[in-house]
């Protein structure tokens, strides 16, 4: 595989490999000197057509710790805001010799187009496109779950684990990527949302659907191992997706009482940025079982793994055969 556009691009073996390599990357990040020479001389472009400081700096840190040259190309204040097309921007980056393009775009499918329209030869990494997908977010979420929920994590998937994704599934690229990846890794997924915030066609997804958060948290779909709250934009109420912020919060927000319905071991997750008081209360977000800050940390290791696997050595992202630590360390840069 040359690109990472969708969580569906990864089969089980490839997904586990990414997580395993990410573990090794994370181990290097606990050292005093965090930088690896792996991608020295390679150029990674962060092409961001949407404001997303969190995701951009995560990718930037990942690329820099692999010694890649990083170019940040932000749509705001650039030629893009003067009407330059995605194609011309891509041709410009190609002319500058980008080995990988990390793209965030408000239009679903824009990274797909970038990868397949013949505008650039670089590897394309989808850093979030419209309401489509955000595969590296799903990978870092799976990485975080595996660390908390699976003993002897290396080489393991998430078979049998139960995960609830709660909130605005309709507009969430995080939800789409998570449903696909978690399913690939053997986990059971329950989507919990008001019916207005579920897409028509969700019945074809490999997951269950619930409209009742309390029932689901109380074990209605089996004991949950993780609950992931999705960001909800307050403006959605203006389009009648829900009547008011308060009603949404009452019916679908995670607060201390609802956390109390969960088994001891269940982790509470959120991809950020959070709307405290809307989909998640402060005490839920800050509780000991919350992995929200850790998700951010893990994001760097996972993105290092993705860039490494796409750019270093073999073009194939982890062939299914040999164990990950042999595949990943062809250049012998890791301990």
């Amino acid at each position, binding site marked *: 595989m040359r690109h990472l556009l969708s969580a569906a691009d990864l089969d089980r073996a490839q997904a586990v490999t990414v997580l395993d390599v990410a573990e090794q990357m994370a181990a290097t990040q606990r050292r005093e000197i965090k930088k690896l020479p792996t991608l020295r001389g390679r150029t990674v472009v962060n092409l961001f057509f949407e404001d997303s400081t969190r995701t951009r700096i995560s990718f930037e840190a990942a690329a820099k710790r692999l010694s890649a040259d990083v170019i940040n190309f932000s749509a705001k204040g650039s030629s893009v805001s003067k009407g330059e*097309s*995605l*194609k011309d921007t891509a041709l410009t980056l190609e002319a500058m010799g980008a080995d990988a393009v990390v793209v965030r*775009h*408000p*239009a*679903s*499918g*824009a990274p*797909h*187009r970038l990868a*397949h*329209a013949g505008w650039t030869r670089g590897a394309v990494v989808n850093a979030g*496109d*419209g*309401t*489509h*997908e955000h595969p590296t977010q799903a990978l870092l979420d799976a990485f975080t779950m595996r660390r908390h929920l699976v003993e002897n994590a290396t080489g393991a998937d998430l078979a049998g684990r139960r995960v609830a994704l709660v909130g605005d599934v309709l507009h969430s*690229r995080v939800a*789409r990527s998570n449903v696909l990846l978690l399913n690939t890794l053997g986990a059971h997924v329950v989507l919990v949302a008001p019916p207005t915030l579920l*897409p*028509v*066609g*969700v019945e*074809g*997804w490999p997951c269950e659907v619930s409209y009742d958060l309390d029932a689901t948290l109380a074990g209605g779909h089996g004991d949950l191992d993780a609950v992931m709250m999705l960001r909800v934009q307050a403006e959605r109420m203006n389009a009648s997706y829900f009547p008011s912020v308060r009603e949404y919060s009452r019916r679908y927000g995670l607060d201390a009482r609802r956390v109390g319905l969960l088994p001891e071991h269940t982790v509470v997750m959120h991809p950020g940025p959070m709307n405290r008081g809307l989909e998640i209360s402060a005490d839920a977000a800050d509780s000991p079982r919350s992995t929200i800050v850790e998700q951010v940390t893990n994001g760097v290791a996972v993105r290092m793994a993705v860039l490494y696997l796409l750019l270093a050595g073999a073009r194939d992202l982890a062939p299914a055969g040999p164990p990950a630590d042999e595949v990943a360390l062809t250049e012998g840069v890791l301990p």
Partner: protein
Amino acid sequence: MTTTTAGTTWLVRRSRVLGGQPTDVLVENGVVAEIGPGLSAAGASVLDADGLVLLPGLVDLHTHLREPGREDAETVETGSQAAARGGFTAVHAMANTDPVADTAGVVEQVWRLGRRSGWVDVRPVGAVTVGLAGERLAELGAMADSAAGVRVFSDDGKCVSDAVLMRRALEYVKAFDGVVAQHAQEPRLTDGAQMHEGAVSAVLGLRGWPAVAEEAIIARDVLLAGHVGSRLHVCHLSTAGSVEIVRWAKGRGIDVTAEVTPHHLLLTDEEVRSYDPVFKVNPPLRTAEDVMALREALADGTIDIVATDHAPHPVEDKDCEWAAAAMGMTGLETALSVVQHTMVETGLLDWAGVAQRMSAAPARIGRLADQGRPLVVGEPAHLTLVDPAARWTVEPHTMATMGRNSPFRGRELPGQVVATFYAGHPTVLDGKLAGPRPGTTPGRDA
């Protein structure tokens, strides 16, 4: 261009009229002069049509020729050349030009451009509302009375969504035997819509265009047409539910006709998984179940006609991300092939049925008196010769249209238009443009 006397007389040898037994057809002075085996005519140009099917010249009720205003996308000249190559002898040009064809002046301009080009009969469609804004009626009577003699009125591209305005338009055009051709799309249900709403849109994260947004308008409009006793035409019907509503309305005796595009007879929303904007169109590509329902409805007469919705766009309007791309596909030069592929080769229609749905019925709906006529002696010689055994690969850069946005690019299709006669003049010979018809088009009905 042939201007000799011999050029005005053509002997078409051994073609299969409407797919029947081989026979000869003599074309003289713009009309069908003789039909029968073993004809001869001194000085006639002979066209050996062994194995070819002879159809009446095709009539398209729905094209976008882009002129005036978007001559970078298409002109009346290039669009009507594309039509001739596709086997058409008459096309209706939709009103969403710039300026909008909402006055007698603009429709006459388009009509004159068509006459000057001489490749096909170009019939302007008049806008229903001023500027397609959906607020007040355009001067429909003035357009009807103009030299262009407009009979089809449409805000195509936009829906006449206001129920009162739609009612008034339906009523008003009765005075001059006009028809309102509705682009059925409930605007609030389709705000920002990018593709058919269903399983594929859910996965792709593209805003959905639900079938109900089309069906709700069609249901309302057939009831309105029945209530005021008017003629209604439904543009590019695209869903199985719409078929059911039109079938119900026809059963009730409501005067409704409907069209389907070639692309809705073949392609589904699965194509959108490529995110290639060449598949972005309005109404959107639907599901396989819808496609099968549309084919059945075209076969059983619930859907009356095939119309292309030919919508050329400049390359840059498609060479971009999906959301930024323009909606629309070219269709004039692939229509007959797609109909052969989806309807004839599946056994749903014979060639007489194709002629009915691509020539006679659209001419009747558009009130074109001298088009879509039966293939008998004395009728105007608007003729299309198609080689049903030919197979060809669609290559947009070889087409006459300026638009490169064919969704069939790279696809092998059956059936090739070998010759087109427009009022006895060969606009297409050997599958290539031969020349426009000299002089002006003959007098029309209005």
